[in-house]
């Protein structure tokens, strides 16, 4: 299972970024291999409009099965995400990455769709 977190840093102690489209960083945790990978979402910072669909493309390209974020994705990004076999959990905006992972494991996060 590959889990993608929207974050403001690169470690388990980092704060989550509540934003999806303009999230600063993605941390990808591969549960089987127990590896943590970082992808900086720098391209969207330069974009005026339409970051939702672009970020969705990127996250799906990372092979995400589960996405954990704060507020969730907007309408356009949701349309795309729904047609793929990925689940998005929201409500982790005020947590650290580790807390978000534990909350997800304990079924405490809300499923956006």
């Amino acid at each position, binding site marked *: 299972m590959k889990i993608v977190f929207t974050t403001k840093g690169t470690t388990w102690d980092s704060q989550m970024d509540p934003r999806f489209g303009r999230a600063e960083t993605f941390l990808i945790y591969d549960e089987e291999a127990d590896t943590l990978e970082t992808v900086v979402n720098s391209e969207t*910072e330069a974009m005026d*409009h339409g970051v939702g669909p672009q970020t969705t493309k990127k996250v799906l390209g990372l092979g995400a099965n589960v996405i954990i974020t704060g*507020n*969730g994705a907007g309408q356009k990004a949701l349309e795309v995400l729904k047609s793929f076999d990925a689940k998005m959990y929201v*409500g982790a905006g005020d947590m650290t990455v580790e807390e978000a992972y534990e909350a997800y494991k304990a079924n405490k996060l809300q499923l*956006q769709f």
Partner: protein
Amino acid sequence: MREVVVISGKGGTGKTSLSASFSYIEGANAVVCDCDVDAANMHLLLGANFNNQSDFYSGEISVIDPEMCTNCGECFDVCRFDAITQEEDTHIVDPISCEGCHYCFQVCPHEAITMVTQKAGDVYISDIKQGGKMAHAKLGFAAENSGKLVAKVKSEAKMLALKEDKGFVITDGSPGIGCPVISSLSGANLVVLVTEATVSGLHDLKRVYELTKTFNLKCVCIINKYDLNQVITTKIEDFLLKEKVPVVAKLPYDETFTKALAIAQPIVEFDNSSELSQTIIKTWDKIKQIINEEQK
């Protein structure tokens, strides 16, 4: 630090008057953030001094190099925005009309066209009269507000609030439900919806509320000018009740709004002892209470 975003869907409901008052009440404990960059006016009410400026770049326009241009006119033919004109054997791009679509750049057979990033405006951090600071922006001619610019203004405000350990970021959003509004909502802890008792007030409230639902944001509502049309006020209240959105205030139509605006003061500064001001002060208290409950 908690962020409150004030939006309305419809323009002219009293959003800026109210957020300026909330900011004034909270004083130095809040960083104010004006995300209504298309029609930025909160700096007028809060006496911003524009003391820290930085450039903001956004979008591209095409530029034709006259040395390499052979005047073949292919760019002129394809431009959908009539941005390219032919003058005395040269082709020139009108930067105001150019939308930066890259069409001319793609078709030019001589590679005489380059796309140049535009300075779209300025971002400011200002000191304001109640103490504290505000982040705001000013757009250049023919430049438009964007999610990117709002994200920039917001990140400046949030960084400032974290650095100086402030309790609140109070964000004045823009009307509508488009990209800048979505960007102003991101990361908010509470959304204050300001509506008014008119047909479009209710219609636009519903639209913008749908948007906040997508992002799972907690909302409260202020019904302004509720006495304009009691029938619509009842419809608004029914809608909010059904959606479980608490109404934190119902304000009557009151010309103090315009009088205070005319001398560039928040209502609570203009006439602190009036009933209207007292209601606004109580409303802000209620909003803070709801934020505290949410945090638990």
